[in-house]
């Protein structure tokens, strides 16, 4: 039987990099096909070849049994292949009907028939997904999941045969991811063929009929996720045993660095007693609204707690602003890497030395030599993959950007590191390196507080884990003797787990900022 989509032996070279090295992808009709691989494995190049954005150096591309020679994006679309990107490409001020139909408006005479559009939009949402959006809602009133549904519906208007989802779940919380997976299953049952690209192997496992694993521009395996564990898939992706994926620090906790007594702020959290020691990695987790995020922000002076007290190295600590925190040797690596942690246009060197320019200055002028030495040292030490210290950070992969964000604080030798979702959106290989780095920070005598919703990650890298629930610390666990189920039970309160919950907690509620460059 001919497959719905068949990419065969594709090669693509960019300068010195062989991005695709004979990769093949075969998607059968009516199936969901997962595509996984580390960053740099060739996923995005492969998708761009499929979309007609890049032209492959060699290889063939057949859609629905038709072979296409170096197709344009329009030809690919005409064959029924449509793409759902990570960003929701919908103007915020548009109504649901307008967002759905702009570019192919329903008209009456020369004018747009708004009522017909809204009616038709409501009908389509009902027919495809059994959904009803609030009447008169604008795109800006919808949450990310609803926008995603709208984006999918927009693609469905073109009667696609194959839908390609490119990291669709990145900015969704757990509940929304479940809904997305439900919708994709529904599309499959309606006969569509689907390519699903994601970093989250649990989603892949829950959704896909087949998975193609890419590594170094080749398809190293096609597996059935029903019979292959996520650990096996991960091992195929990185070609090393993932048993050492979580390099736990060997550091032995020393005297306390930070101590909180009955800390409280508004309704966000209250009565927090916490202690983190030298050489300790302390995990912190909780569901959306548990207050964990707010607590972390308070520790960096981003919001000021009203009750209780903080002590740093035994001295009372009052943080009114992040500048106070930095002065006291506290470092924060925030979650929104691009907007808060690195300056994308500045070079690696400038980013690394940004937080500690004082130590690179002589007579008020910057000492380029010292800056270069320090950044080269950190680039080597952290194995940051960059063409050099002068490369703009935006050219680096997500994992390497994260390393730069960490390096920035390393050059200051902080005593307390606050890491907010340090591994979100980066590939497994880079994750392991970040974990190693965290372990090293602890071994060098710093205290590390990691906020994460990835429970296996927390269990793997922490000494202790604190779970927050409704603004309180609901439990403290020794990472060596706990498991994801236990933590999840504690985080959801009552110890009961909602059905279908996995080891991935929706700790953050964020939305992709409209990408308008």
């Amino acid at each position, binding site marked *: 039987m001919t497959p719905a989509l068949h990419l065969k032996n594709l090669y693509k070279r960019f300068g010195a990099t062989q991005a695709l090295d004979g990769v093949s992808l075969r998607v059968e009709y009516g199936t969901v096909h997962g595509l996984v691989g580390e960053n740099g494995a060739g996923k995005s190049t492969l998708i761009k070849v499929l979309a007609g954005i890049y032209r492959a150096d060699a290889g063939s591309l057949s859609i629905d049994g038709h072979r296409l020679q170096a197709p344009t994006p*329009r030809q690919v679309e005409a064959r029924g292949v449509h793409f759902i*990107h990570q*960003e929701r*490409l*919908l*103007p*915020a*001020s*548009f109504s649901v009907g*307008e967002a759905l139909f*702009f*570019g192919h*408006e329903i*008209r009456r005479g*020369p*004018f*747009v028939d708004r009522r017909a559009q809204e009616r038709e939009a409501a009908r389509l949402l009902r027919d495809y*997904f*059994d*959904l*009803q*959006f*609030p009447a008169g*809602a*604008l795109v*800006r*009133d*919808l*949450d990310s*999941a*609803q926008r995603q*549904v709208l984006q999918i519906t927009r693609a469905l208007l073109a009667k696609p045969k194959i839908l390609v989802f490119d990291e669709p779940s990145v900015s969704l919380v757990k*509940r929304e991811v*479940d*809904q997305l997976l*439900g*919708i994709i299953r*529904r599309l499959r049952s309606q006969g569509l063929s689907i390519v699903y690209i994601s970093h989250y192997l649990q989603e892949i496992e829950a959704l896909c009929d087949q998975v193609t694993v890419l590594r170094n521009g080749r398809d190293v395996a096609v597996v059935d996720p029903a019979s292959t564990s996520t650990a096996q898939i991960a091992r195929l992706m990185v070609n090393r045993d993932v048993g050492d994926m979580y390099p736990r620090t060997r550091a032995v906790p020393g005297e306390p660095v930070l101590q909180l007594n009955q800390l409280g702020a508004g309704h966000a959290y209250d009565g927090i007693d916490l202690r983190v020691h030298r050489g300790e990695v302390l995990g912190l987790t909780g569901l959306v609204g548990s207050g964990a995020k707010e607590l972390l922000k308070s520790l960096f002076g981003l919001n000021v707690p009203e009750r209780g007290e903080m002590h740093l190295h035994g001295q009372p600590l009052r943080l009114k602003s992040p500048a106070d925190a930095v002065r006291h040797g506290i470092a924060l690596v925030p979650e929104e890497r691009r907007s808060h942690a690195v300056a994308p246009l500045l070079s690696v060197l400038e980013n690394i030395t940004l937080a500690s320019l004082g130590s690179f200055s002589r007579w008020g002028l910057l000492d380029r030599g010292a800056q270069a030495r320090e950044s080269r040292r950190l680039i080597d030490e952290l194995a940051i993959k960059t063409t050099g210290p002068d490369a703009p950070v935006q050219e680096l992969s997500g994992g390497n950007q994260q390393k730069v964000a960490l390096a920035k604080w390393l050059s200051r030798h902080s005593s307390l590191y606050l890491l907010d979702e340090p591994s979100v959106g980066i590939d497994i290989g880079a994750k392991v390196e970040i974990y190693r780095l965290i372990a090293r920070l602890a071994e060098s005598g710093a205290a590390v507080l990691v906020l994460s919703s990835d429970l296996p990650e927390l269990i793997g890298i922490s000494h202790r884990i604190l779970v927050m629930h409704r603004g309180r610390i609901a439990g403290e666990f020794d990472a060596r003797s706990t498991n994801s189920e236990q933590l999840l039970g504690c985080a959801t309160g009552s110890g009961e787990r909602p059905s279908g919950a996995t080891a991935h907690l929706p700790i953050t509620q964020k*939305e992709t*900022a*409209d*990408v*308008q460059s």
Partner: protein
Amino acid sequence: MSSLETLARPATEPANNLLPRLAQRGSLLVFGLILLVFAMTAPNFLSAGNIANVFAQSAILGILAFGLTCVVIGGGNHVVSGGLDLSLAANLGLCAAVYSSLNNQGCEAWQALSLTLACGVLVGAFNGLAVLLLGLPPLLATLASMNLVAGLELVLTQNSVLPTESALLASLAFGYWLGVPALAWVLLAVAALLTLLIQHSAFGLRLYAVGEYPEAARAAGLGLRRYVFSSYLIAGACAAVAALCSAAFFSGSTTGSGEMLLSVVAITFLGVVFSRRLTANIPGTLLATLLLGFLINGFQLLNISSFWVNGVQGVLILLVVAFSAAVAKQEGHA
């Protein structure tokens, strides 16, 4: 699929919508209040003659602001990096000068008229090319063309007033239809035409998409340049039409048309506040034009110095810009 039904819940949190709603209601309320205060204090404020007068006097500013509205829609309503046409007022000055000199040299009425329109559209095309081909931010591109156009006007007029008279200007200036002055009809006609084009045609909807989210428009297969370019052409045409109204109002070309720029920008961004979607739009711009018109008129009737109007305008611009910045921030964090 009952699990999906939770998706259908209203996602809006009340706090999220408070600011826009407050602004919209608030600005309408302020509009009403101003009318009320003037109605009670200023003599003849509510007389049909006065109201018609305000419409007529607002025609020039209003039509220019319609042009700017189109550009802001197509370029996005970010105050600094979005769409902007600073050359509109200067373009009006040039067009009025062109019409006056052509008319004085004895050109046929239709020749003078069409060459004036062509002049306005040409300046618009120049702006469009500067923005699209050179990739300049509209703020800078049109700042440059504003100076260029103002210079051309000086060359043409030697910085003097060119008085002129024609049947067209006379009927614009003194004509009445159904008891309403001709200039008011021009304002309403341009408003109606552009409302149909911008708010109700596919072109308009796509122009919004292009301005607000270029990536989305590109993904929808829309040719961005075509839409942005047309918005500058429309602005240029608006400048030419406004120039005719101005020539009618002042019986010829005048100097110092550039001073209208600030009012035009104020009106356009004030118009944003009148819409539920918080986007630049033609009816909102019309409302804002009239608000400013009534304000000036009321001040005149009460014998308050017109210098105060400048102050009020400045405050309005500050408020509106601060407001849109606040909304943009909210959207970014939402």
